[in-house]
């Protein structure tokens, strides 16, 4: 009897706290980028979008941001799968179950500063290598932060994401009863390699796909880590948007909103894919 009421109520709550602010924000950003709102805007114009797409800056930024998220997530998934498959019960209890949570306690900016201090040319690692005689001068230490290969950013992002994926796979390992499948495979004559690559990894990857996409979106928006550890160019999409929104030229602000709109649509597309995938999963 109360079902219709509950449905409307649930939808209203969702609308009020999630969709409404999001849509209002997106609407405002779109309006700003087309010159419809904003103190310095003078009415509808396509100029801001034209300027933005007149150079390759924004395309490169989208590709670069996606590449960073992809690289750090791939490494992270690889390590966490290896760890969970090698020690499936280690994270149930004991010291490891606590240690794995540690990086989760680091806010991004703290982790970024830590990695900067640790990996920079005059940082802790460089000094250690110098003291141990591995390098003859501190300046001989290779570029690991603000570097062309983005080692600093990818290491930090991996460090921050690793616990999430280890915990995710450890719990999926239990929930999907992988141990039972493995036993069954062994009984049917499968080798250990076959069991891992044909059963365990495909099941874990398939089940975690929506989480991977959502985490990918989360990584696309990271700001502090690429700002501190990245190069001045290319910039990630959030660094580019903030620079346009907050630097010296107020006339760049509409372009900053346009970048934000591009980012929002990118996220919406990915979310759509993630929900499609998760829906299919549970339909199986």
């Amino acid at each position, binding site marked *: 009897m109360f079902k219709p009421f509950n449905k409307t109520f649930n939808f209203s709550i969702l609308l009020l706290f999630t969709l409404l602010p999001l849509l209002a924000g997106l609407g405002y950003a779109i309006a700003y980028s087309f010159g419809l709102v904003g*103190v310095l805007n003078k009415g509808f114009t396509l100029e801001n979008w034209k300027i933005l797409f007149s150079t390759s800056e924004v395309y490169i930024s989208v590709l670069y941001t996606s590449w960073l998220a992809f690289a750090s997530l791939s490494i992270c998934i690889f390590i966490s799968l290896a760890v969970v498959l090698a020690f499936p019960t280690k994270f149930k209890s004991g010291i490891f179950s606590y240690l794995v949570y540690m990086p989760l306690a680091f806010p991004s900016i703290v982790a970024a500063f830590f990695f900067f201090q640790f990996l*920079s040319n005059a940082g802790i690692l460089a000094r250690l290598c110098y003291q141990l005689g591995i390098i003859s001068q501190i300046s001989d230490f290779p570029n690991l932060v603000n570097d062309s290969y983005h080692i600093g950013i990818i290491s930090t992002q991996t460090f921050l994401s690793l616990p999430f994926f280890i915990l995710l796979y450890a719990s999926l390992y239990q929930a999907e009863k992988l141990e039972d499948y493995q036993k069954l495979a062994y009984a049917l004559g499968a080798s250990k390699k076959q069991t891992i690559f044909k059963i365990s990894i495909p099941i874990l990857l398939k089940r975690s796909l929506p989480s991977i996409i959502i985490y990918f979106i989360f990584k696309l928006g990271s700001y502090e880590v690429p700002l501190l550890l990245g190069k001045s160019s290319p910039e990630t999409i959030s660094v580019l948007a903030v620079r346009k929104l907050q630097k010296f030229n107020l006339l760049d602000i509409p372009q900053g909103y346009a970048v934000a709109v591009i980012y929002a649509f990118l996220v919406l597309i990915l979310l759509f894919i993630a929900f499609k995938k998760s829906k299919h999963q549970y339909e199986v």
Partner: protein
Amino acid sequence: MINRKKNIILLSFLFIGSVINACKQNQSNTQQDSLMTQSWEEIEQKAKGTTVVFMKYLGDKKANKHIDEYVVPTVLKRYGITLKIIPGQGNEIVNSIMTEQEAGLAEGQTDMVWINGETFYQLQQIKGLYGPFTDKLPNSKYINYEDPIIKYDFQQAINGYEAPWGKASFIGITDSARVKNIPQSMQDFEAYWKAHPGKFTIPLDFSGYTLLKSWLVEIAGGIKELDGDFNQEKYDKYAPQLWDFINRNKKYFWKSGSTFPASNVTVSQMFGSGELDFAFSFGITAIDKGIKEGLFPATSKAFVFKAGSIHNTSYLGIPYNAPNKEGALVVINFLLSPEAQIEKSDINNSGGMPVFDYQKLEKQWQDQYQALPKIKYGMSEEAIQEKAIKETHSQYMINVAADFRTQVIEKP
């Protein structure tokens, strides 16, 4: 299915609604001139028992201590005003006021702001400041408003829309133990970079862009050439020479010029750790403070670039929609007083140069100012004053910042 369609229609209406609503925002800029007709006593009386919200940069520990331990208790005791400090600088201040303006808020969250140059230019662009108000301040009698370093903020006449609070001068910092002959001209730097690759970089912030402007002034043959309003022709004539100078030398910069640090804080840290040979500052007391805090080596030394030391003044402004303008006026007046200025100039506090005209001070304040501890490691106020040059127009900074990205950073 019908429900789903309904939801989509509803969401579409909400979306369109939010856009229309945003378009309708009131962008009016209300100025309360009636405030200026009151006597100073009336203003002080109205300010009593109120709270003043002061948005300022909070990145300097000693400056924070000066505010927390001296200014806040003094204004409470003397004027009954509770001074609340909130963090914000430059673009954050502009964004905060702009957002309030776009939202049509008649009363904002901030009563006074600490600003200079760029921020003043931006706030004037959006008519975000209240004023003119400096004539109303009794302590304005100690200020020489005709002094070009006070009268013009980045070549823009302040016209009473901001009150000076501190003077700053752009200096280079180096370690005399590592750098025996300190380079000053662009030619000197070119030779130094070639002999010591990897020891120099330019931060992508206010300090870095000021360095670029110093070189632009040097290329132009002196500040006279770039004095006054922004001149596109002159910029187009001199800027390419600057980018050529940097591009042909950037291979000798930190990380071979493939990247530049986001802020001068990082540059200072790298100077302290020995990774870089040069850092930059706007405060003549920066070296004394850095050495005391253990950040800089004791052999650190200040120097001025060949073009001169770009001088600028930082100011206090009142947002157009400040809810407590009377309170802000009383606090600003106190901060301009010889007493507060001398306290602030102490190198154990904020440091920096006071804004008063020494000749206008009563004897007791002159003596008190002379009794302050002198700078030990940096350059003296007099030595820097001799080489002081005016800031260029804000548009030079905007162009230099944008072009440095396209002409240097994004060029292989």
